């Protein structure tokens, strides 16, 4: 039930009183409800769970995490296996 996937919003519209979006999951397109992430805009990424966006993905945090982990890995490469 925690299985949620990042997807890119490509279109936003209203349907049945709900804010909905067409979401691109790397080439597969599905509809998702944006009512819980109303600030999400086209071209932004959300975590989508059972057809609902539950969180907006932060590009800044993503880059910082990756940079930190790359640094940790590089330290390992320079020093060689412990």
């Amino acid at each position: 039930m925690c299985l949620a996937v990042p997807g890119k919003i490509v279109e936003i519209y209203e349907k049945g009183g709900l804010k909905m979006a067409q979401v691109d999951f790397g080439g597969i397109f599905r509809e998702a409800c944006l009512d819980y992430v109303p600030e999400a805009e086209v071209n932004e990424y959300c975590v989508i769970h059972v057809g609902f966006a539950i969180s907006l993905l932060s590009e800044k945090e993503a880059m910082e995490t990756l940079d930190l982990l790359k640094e940790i890995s590089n330290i390992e490469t320079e020093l060689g296996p412990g």
Partner: protein
Amino acid sequence: MKYVTEYRDAALVKGVIEEIRRTVTRPWTMMEICGGQTHAIVRHGLDQLLPAEIELVHGPGCPVCVTPLELIDKALAIAARPDVIFCSYGDMLRVPGSGRDLFSVKAQGGDVRVVYSPLDAVQIAQQNPDKQVVFFAIGFETTAPPNVMSVLQAQRLGLKNYSILVSHVRVPPAINAILSSPENRVQGFLLAGHVSAVMGYWEYPSLAKKFNVPMVVTGFEPLDIANGILQTVQLLEANKVEIGNAYSRAVTFEGNQPAQKTIGQVFMECDRKWRGIGMIPMSGWCLRPEFDQFNAEKRFDVEAITADESPLCIAGQILQGLKKPNQCSAFGTICHPEHPLGATMVSSEGACAAYYKYGRVEMKDSVPS
């Protein structure tokens, strides 16, 4: 795929695991809460790559696995009614009740439909006004916002034929129960990333302090899990009792406020029975009385027909992290995905299913204390 592929980079994962190896000085036992995390760990072989000092025990983060037998039996009774269209997420179909499952009810003519989103069930109710549409609302906190939205949407549309059968469970009371157990060996927690995307992690500092156990919000890709383990090990080695966030691209301290507000509007906390574990106080969510008309348990008068669980099934001990699937005498022999004795072998998030699917079939000795 952006936000996915880069977190599956094998070289980076190995680099982080090497850093774990360099950081660890003594044995540590940590638990990952979420079944999705268990699957990722076993699937990518992370448990085998980690240094021997780190033991991962698997938690009860599989809402399908912990749904009580009585509720499954109620679902089966409702689904078998000719006036009902019973809608469910896919992995509930093969969970064994007392002698049968939703799949066999469907095979015998019951109208059981797998849906992707609870809004699909609402649409089915709109399209079938002469039928009762019941949605099996299973889940942890992650699934609560979608499930409650279906109730609000049904209300908005004035539907009289839509109801939900609720089996919602919450993580903080589960952690409290696990850490309170006299047999507990868990020293650190990998918190469920998507539960925390919804709820934030403001509920955990008091728990961490109460039991002196650090906790780190962790995602689901191999690099996320390695990062979560690294941060947990760093906290343990430094004797720091803190909450870390190794999934900061998706999770904030406060979490999703609109979602929390909407959950509170429709649900209230209540006692819940966890299959294999027992009753954990205030560990679940139920519909508020003003939403009684959408409560399938109130709408349908079905007596639960309960038989005992299989005496061979140790799912309860597995869900509490006390035993591993390959320590079960039935694992891989009488109990396997085609013939599951318990929910942990059936659910896509069950530990037994993960071990079976990814080949952890060898019998392991009990872990020395």
